[in-house]
């Protein structure tokens, strides 16, 4: 008899609760206690795995039954289940996340969040020097100016991208906001100081406030370094083959060109630069028109010579680059098909 009574009470309780929970899925009363919902990453991209964590001061979540819904469909349930993960949809989708927590005494809390995947790319370049047709990244030397560009992809459910002019950009260098504005998708700013590192970041928000995104780039200051290349009379500067350590050549005359990578200059022959060349410790005056280039003639000498170069600038007191190379003038042979500089013997 008692067991029958208990079963009857159980059925009655279920009958009362099921409609309530069903109701909770489609529309909450608005009288629930608010919960806090954290989303990681804060600005998810399409396909990202998003972790949600719910917390509350008003509801004892550890003693609550917690149910998670994505677009109205239950995705997780459990006592004290304060964390769950959701896969973000593609760009242009919206995934509504609802979480409902019910304490044993019937106190209910709920909150909602929407995943609108966005993508923000932060591109940058420095105005430091690198030779023409250099296919690598020009890094930020001392006193470099950084130009940065945000590429934002905010896509509405109808597939239309939000135009740049309808996005508000906020630019930061470290924690300091350095620029902001509607449609301001690019900036120019001083680069990191000597031996320093700056983190440039940009947050983007659509004018209607529905879409948000963020990107950042860590930019290190790099020391300018000199590479030395053969400046061949027929082929020009052999940028593909730097002189490394001790280099052997079979030429009787060798013209070499120094390239100050990532120095804060426009051209290596500009007058603010001071090239101090030395050959076997004998200081030699540089060619005033092209001080970055130096010609060595052997006069039938064979053997090693040491080339030293020191580069400074009156316009950039932090610029100080030095290099030492040994060039061995060989006996005989031909130029092509022989190991010349840095090529394994």
């Amino acid at each position, binding site marked *: 008899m008692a067991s029958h009574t208990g079963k009857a009470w159980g059925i009655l309780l279920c009958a009362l609760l099921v409609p309530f929970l069903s109701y909770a899925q489609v529309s909450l009363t608005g009288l629930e206690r608010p919960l806090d919902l954290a989303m990681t990453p804060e600005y998810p991209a399409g396909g990202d795995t998003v972790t949600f964590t719910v917390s509350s001061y008003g509801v004892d979540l550890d003693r609550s039954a917690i149910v998670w819904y994505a677009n109205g469909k239950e995705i997780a349930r459990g006592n004290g289940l304060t964390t769950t993960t959701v896969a973000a949809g593609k760009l242009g989708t919206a995934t509504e996340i609802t979480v409902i927590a019910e304490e044993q005494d019937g106190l209910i809390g709920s909150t909602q969040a929407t995943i609108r995947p966005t993508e923000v790319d932060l591109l940058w370049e420095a105005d430091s020097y690198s030779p023409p047709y250099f296919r690598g990244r020009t890094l930020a030397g001392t006193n470099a100016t950084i130009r*940065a560009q945000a590429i934002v992809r905010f896509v509405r459910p109808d597939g239309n991208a939000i135009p740049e002019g309808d996005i508000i950009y906020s630019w930061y260098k470290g924690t300091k906001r350095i620029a902001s504005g509607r449609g301001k998708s*690019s900036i120019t700013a001083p680069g990191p100081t000597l031996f320093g590192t700056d983190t440039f970041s940009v947050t983007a928000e659509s004018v209607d406030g529905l879409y948000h995104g963020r990107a950042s780039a860590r930019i290190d200051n790099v020391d300018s370094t000199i590479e030395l290349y053969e400046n061949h009379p027929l082929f020009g500067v052999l940028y593909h083959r730097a002189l490394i350590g001790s280099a052997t050549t079979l030429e009787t005359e060798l013209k070499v060109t120094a390239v100050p990578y990532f120095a804060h200059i426009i051209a290596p022959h500009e007058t603010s630069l001071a090239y101090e060349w030395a050959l076997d410790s004998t200081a*030699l005056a540089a060619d005033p028109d092209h001080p970055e280039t130096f010609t060595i003639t052997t006069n039938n000498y064979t053997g090693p010579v040491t080339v030293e170069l020191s580069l400074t600038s009156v316009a950039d007191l932090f610029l100080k680059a030095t290099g030492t190379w040994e060039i061995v003038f060989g006996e005989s042979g031909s130029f092509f098909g022989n190991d010349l500089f840095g090529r394994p013997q």
Partner: protein
Amino acid sequence: MPRHETTFRYIGFAAISLLLIGLAGWYFFISRQTANLGEVSEARGFAVGVPSFTGSRGSTSENIASGFADAPPATAEAEPQRPPRLWRVSTAPVAGAGFVSVSSTTVLRYVERSTGHVFDVDPMTGVVTRRTNRLIPKVYEASVGKGDTIVARTITDAGARETFVGSLGTTTVDGFTPLTGTDLGPSIRDIVFDSDGVVFLADTASGGSQLVRAEIDGSEPSVLRVFGAGDFNLSLLTDGRIILVEKPSSGMPGYAYAVGNGLVPLARAVPGLTLAARASSSTAVLIGADNGSSLSLSVRPTPDAASLTLDIDTVADKCVWMPGLSFTAYCAVPQEDPAPGFLTNWHRGTVHTTDSWYVVDGGAGTSDSFFEMKSDDAIDVERPTMDGGGNFIAFMNARDKSLWLLRIIE
């Protein structure tokens, strides 16, 4: 009086002696300075005549002349022979090369670096034909396009870029085809041919860059996209898509895009990014990464698919997709793990690799050894390109800019 005369005589002798000693000292001082200046002048080469580049140390000109093709004979008059499977087309440095179709025949066309002369190579017979005699000295970069078009990029004495875009004529004069064109100016950062003209990335007055499509002579430019910042390497696929890959540095996150209706991301925030996109609607890509200490290569068969990490460690710039429906790519792979910071050092010419060829199944994400190059050749592959039939890979050796041709089928 006699005593005075004697005194004056002694003083006179002493004065004359001092004067002679002084003059002798001055003579030796001047002589030493002259010797120093002579040593300095000799060291700088002021005491020698204009170098002839001939003699026992070899002749550069002769080397250039003899540099065209190791084997078989290089002239049209010679009996055609089938070239070896791996053939050094030119030992002399070249500025760029590509496959073109001439009278329905596939031809490897290249631009010689020192002169800018254009050569055509029949990859089946090995016959090399010089097409032009217009002198464009010191061509650092070159590319060839459809319709007998050529880009030759040089550097002015002031260090500025020059981009000559021209086309070969339809007639010949003294056996050579006239090459006419125009200089697009110093603002061109990178340039490729598209179906009807050129696409280039050019500096803007504000310091950024803009992507422009124009006719061969630079006329009728239309701006496709303006960038406030971002420095890219530009390429164009045979399906017409323009590919922008942010210039890489070891460990530095980079981005790549296909330019169409907006910028379609192909890879995002990949450290030391290099990318080779396949020309088809499937948009498969090979993605190379240099995290600062090591290289890795992965393939993504479709935009929505997960990337499959390959078991070869190289950069995507050493890879080329086979044209057609196949998901096959060929990659040159360093035979020894490069030292940390490879990409940064490679672009500065301070480090080189010795490569061998691997074939990649882009659908399965697997790779197999394909062709082992002799170690004594020490080839550091760059700018590989494949003919439309998928029969040959042409590439340059980054060590010396020589041009090579690899036949796919033995």
